[in-house]
């Protein structure tokens, strides 16, 4: 049972990343690969600041700012230098590998003996339950903030930017600035996942972000499939389904391991699972 609780915790930790991908991919219609780098960046900043005994209330904003800067850089390269968004993301992600390695000074940093968020806050005596409540609190606050933002005038303009750029420009919105802000927000959320995961697993590794974008994409695609099936138009419900998507995704991986599939095949299973989610509705409609 603990195995599935761990998967649930992983899913909750990845919720911020999934929300980030939802913002970049679904709201702005930008395939953002910066994710792999900004996720690790969040974990690296957390690890380095924890090892330097910085207080939690400073670490969290530092992680958000670092992720935001990475996303803003992708946005600036894409909008100001007119580089394809995919390439801009790949360039920043590649650069972040060196940045992360330089900040950390080593490829792996253990956090076991350090006062992480999960050691400092005590809601339950059971460590897993304690982590569950803390991460759940995080997810609720993030979802509430993003949900509110998307309902504001600024949020409506954000949503319109990825939908009809010509329209929103004619309505007085600087779409370049909006995309930079959106990518900064998306990657700040991604970095937040790195912050939570590194403290939950007790270490930060330079390669922990490789292919992580697939976890986010898979979560968003699960959510999108559900949104389309149930014809959901509510912003709040869409965000909740994105979080559900992140949890379902981790649960499927847990089930895969539980039924005895070789752990080395996990990335292959992940890719096939995402492919299935994407293709199933199309196969159904193609009849």
């Amino acid at each position, binding site marked *: 049972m603990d195995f599935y609780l761990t998967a649930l915790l992983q899913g909750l930790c990845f919720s911020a990343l999934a929300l980030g991908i939802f913002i970049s991919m679904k709201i702005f219609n930008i395939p953002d690969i910066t994710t792999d780098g900004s996720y690790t960046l969040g974990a690296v900043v957390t690890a380095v600041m924890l090892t330097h005994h910085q207080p939690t209330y400073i670490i969290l904003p530092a992680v958000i700012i670092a992720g935001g800067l990475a996303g803003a850089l992708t946005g600036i390269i894409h909008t100001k230098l007119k580089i394809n968004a995919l390439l801009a993301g790949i360039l920043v992600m590649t650069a972040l590998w060196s940045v992360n390695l330089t900040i950390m000074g080593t490829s792996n940093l253990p956090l076991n003996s350090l006062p992480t968020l999960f050691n400092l806050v005590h809601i339950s005596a059971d460590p897993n339950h304690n982590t569950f409540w803390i991460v759940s609190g995080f997810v609720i606050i993030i979802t509430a903030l993003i949900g*509110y*933002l998307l*309902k*504001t*005038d*600024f949020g*409506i*303009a954000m*949503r*319109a930017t990825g*939908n*009809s750029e*010509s*329209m*929103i*420009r*004619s*309505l*007085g*919105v*600087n*779409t370049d600035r909006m995309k930079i802000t959106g990518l900064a927000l998306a990657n700040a959320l991604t970095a937040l996942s790195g912050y939570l995961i590194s403290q939950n697993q007790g270490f930060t590794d330079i390669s922990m972000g490789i292919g992580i974008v697939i976890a986010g994409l898979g979560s968003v695609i699960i959510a999108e499939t559900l949104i389309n099936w149930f014809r959901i*138009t509510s912003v709040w419900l869409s965000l909740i389904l994105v979080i559900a998507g992140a949890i379902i995704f981790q649960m499927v991986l847990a089930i895969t391991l539980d039924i005895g599939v070789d752990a080395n095949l996990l990335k292959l299973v992940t890719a096939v699972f995402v492919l299935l989610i994407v293709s199933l509705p199309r196969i159904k409609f193609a009849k």
Partner: protein
Amino acid sequence: MIQISNIHKVFNPGKANQVNAVNGISLQIKKEEFLVIVGANGSGKTTMLDMVAGSVFPTSGSITIDSENVTKLPDYRRSKWIARVFQNPVSGTASDLSILDNFRLAAIRTKPKGLSIGINDEFKKQVKEKIATLGMGLENKIDQPMGTLSGGQRQALTLLMSVMDNCKVLLLDEPTAALDPRSAEVVMRTADKLIKDYKLTAILITHNLKDAFTYGNRIILVSEGQIIKDLDAENKQALSQNDLFGWFS
């Protein structure tokens, strides 16, 4: 109101695929004038409209609106004067957003898009009343995504959106090109009414010579990036539909 002075637009200059889209057009459009622009495909009329809107910058020449030089001002900064209805209904509205969300953005076109929630009961009531004037029964569908509506419904709503905030100039870029004749007529009648009611300065580009004949109080013919004919209200009234067809023969 709008002063266009000797504007040129060259696409891909110095390359094999260089196109001289606009070749020295000068035009003064008075306040509350409804200008109709006709011309063959590739004559430069849409490029000219894009330059007025700010989505394309002229290679040379200048454009002023209300005596302010806007030549290098991007489209989003010209929104304090200009509202635009695009040829494709998809371009003028956000499909995934609700009708209400689309109207909210239109209502704050000239204002900052801040971090407050602007959609409240009063705003909903205001939008419903406005939409009801179309007589399309859309006032009860304001929470539906814009993408669920037909092209004609979307164009009619885009027209209404253009007068939600302080608009002075309305640009109509072949607004009925993608519509069936019945929807096209509704859209053009709505546009004409709004232009008159709100005392707007308007520019209409159209391939529909019946619309060109029926609407507006000035007409120009553009060919190869230049103005070939320019008829004011009095001369336009004296123009017969056959004369207009004759321009294209």
